[in-house]
């Protein structure tokens, strides 16, 4: 009798310990981000206050007004154009990478051909080249081609950055769809092209969307290449813009936090939408040869 009571108590203790650990863990995961978000809504003087102000006394949207150039005072950094550049560059490169990636991923998933494993590995190894190492020769080439400080220049680079991993993911998604479905459609009267669009593509759609989100965020977040290949408001992206703040003598912490929030928000929303498919794609593409 006592034994059962004891074991129940220890089970309870274990459960509490489990929850406590998880709670601390989530705190560590979330707090840094939350602190940045919170600071984005506080005036600079409160952030700089000594002794620190723990409970915000004032919640304000001024920081956002400042960085986007409306409201009372402006910061000398054209965040608005950075934002547009980021959006245009990330979206365009994602769409192109997806088209190339769907073709490539389908090829790996559905055909047997010579050097298949080698080509796949080759694509991955190209992806592994460090951005900063790649930035130098690309910079030299792009300056000859007139692509430095253009959106096009960055879009081309980001497409190549995203193609390998997009192929990895999409290959996995297509292999989850039984080949017999496409065959059945072909027996039912479809060409292979029709079978792809009517059967395989609709079934892989959510996976392709997940791959697209991943590609979008890679472009949206990229810094090493963008920092060297962009110069002006014509092509500078948000991550490069963030560093503009630190280059100044007095760091505008509140402004940076506000800009950080602008960068974070798409990441949060998009991650939330596709997280399930993304995990499925990552594991399936990797585990099944």
């Amino acid at each position: 009798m006592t034994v059962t009571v004891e074991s129940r108590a220890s089970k309870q203790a274990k459960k509490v310990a489990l929850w406590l650990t998880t709670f601390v863990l989530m705190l560590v995961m979330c707090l840094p981000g939350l602190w940045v978000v919170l600071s984005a809504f506080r005036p600079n003087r409160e952030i700089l206050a000594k002794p620190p102000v723990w409970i915000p006394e004032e919640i304000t949207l001024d920081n956002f007004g400042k960085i986007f150039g409306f409201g009372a005072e402006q910061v000398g950094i054209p965040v608005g154009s950075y934002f547009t550049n980021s959006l245009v560059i990330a979206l365009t490169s994602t769409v192109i990478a997806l088209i190339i990636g769907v073709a490539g991923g389908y090829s790996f998933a559905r055909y047997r051909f010579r050097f298949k494993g080698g080509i796949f590995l080759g694509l991955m190894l190209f992806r592994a080249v460090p951005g900063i190492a790649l930035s130098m020769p690309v910079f030299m080439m792009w300056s000859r081609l007139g692509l430095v400080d253009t959106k096009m220049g960055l879009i081309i680079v980001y497409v190549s950055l995203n193609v390998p991993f997009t192929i990895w993911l999409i290959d996995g998604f297509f292999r989850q769809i039984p080949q017999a479905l496409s065959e059945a459609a072909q027996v039912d009267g479809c060409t292979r092209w029709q079978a792809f669009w009517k059967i395989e593509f609709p079934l892989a759609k959510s996976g392709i969307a997940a791959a697209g989100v991943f590609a979008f965020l890679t472009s949206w977040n990229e810094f090493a290449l963008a920092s060297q290949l962009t110069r002006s408001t014509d092509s500078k992206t948000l991550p490069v813009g963030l560093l503009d703040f630190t280059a100044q003598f007095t760091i505008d912490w509140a402004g940076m936090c506000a800009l950080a929030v602008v960068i974070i928000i798409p990441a949060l929303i998009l991650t939330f939408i596709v997280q399930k498919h993304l995990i499925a794609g990552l594991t399936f593409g990797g585990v099944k040869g």
Partner: protein
Amino acid sequence: MIRALTTRRTELAPFLLLLPAVATMLFVVALPLIFSLWTSLTPYKLTKPNTLYDFIGLTNYIRIFGDWDFWEAFLRTIAFLTVAINVEFALGLGIALLINKITWGQRGLRTIMMFPMMFSPILVGFQFKFLFNDHIGVVNNALQSLGLTDQAIPWLVDAKLAMFSITLAEVWMSTSVFAILLLAGLFAMPRDPLEAAKVDGCNSWQVFRHITLPFLMPFAYIAMAIRSLDVARAYDLVAVMTDGGPAGRTELLWTLVARVGYDEAKMGQANAMAYVSTILSVLFTWYFYRKLVAARRYMGGAE
């Protein structure tokens, strides 16, 4: 005649589909790498364009291999990656096992875990720079308010602490790749071998060591392979947090490349260093990809 044609078309289809991908990679990566290789064999400086055509053989490589600053950055990079990846794997495994035990809210926790992975590295760097700032950072503020220290701790200024802070940021950003994939592995784990092992008399440590862990290894290798594709993004962290300082004490191979190439405009020498860093990354990816393929084959037998 017609037969020959159709067979050839089916053989060509996969290559045609792959053509855009391969062409892109060749143009944007392979071609620049060749260019980079040539540049590394010249004394090219951005300020003196004509130097691009002076072939000096391996002089740049000999120079960097004789340069203690380079070796310091190189070894620091290796040490940084070794520590970071091991900690990430261990932590990720712990987190995955923990969440696997939890019966309620699993999905929510998993989603939260994905966020750091999707954050811009530059943002993570900024975030920790903000938290670890010696004057206004929340870490120092908290420690001082709690009375744990009366002086501000120079997290990003002291050489040792700065490297620690950078590693911490890196671990915070990348642990979730391991946690998520290992958790997916735990979800996919078949019950039968676990139960068989229990019936065979294994204790829970033995079950973990001999059944769970081997089953999880392919998932760990996927995580490592994915992680290895982008190891150099630590550059972004360092660039925003310390920019290699103080006095080059947090200089990694990648920041050194940027400094020599762009700040000092010595492109020839920087490209030689960049080549070393590229080979390092490629070997790293290749190694884990091979491990993944091997683990996959090994698993295939049990399916």
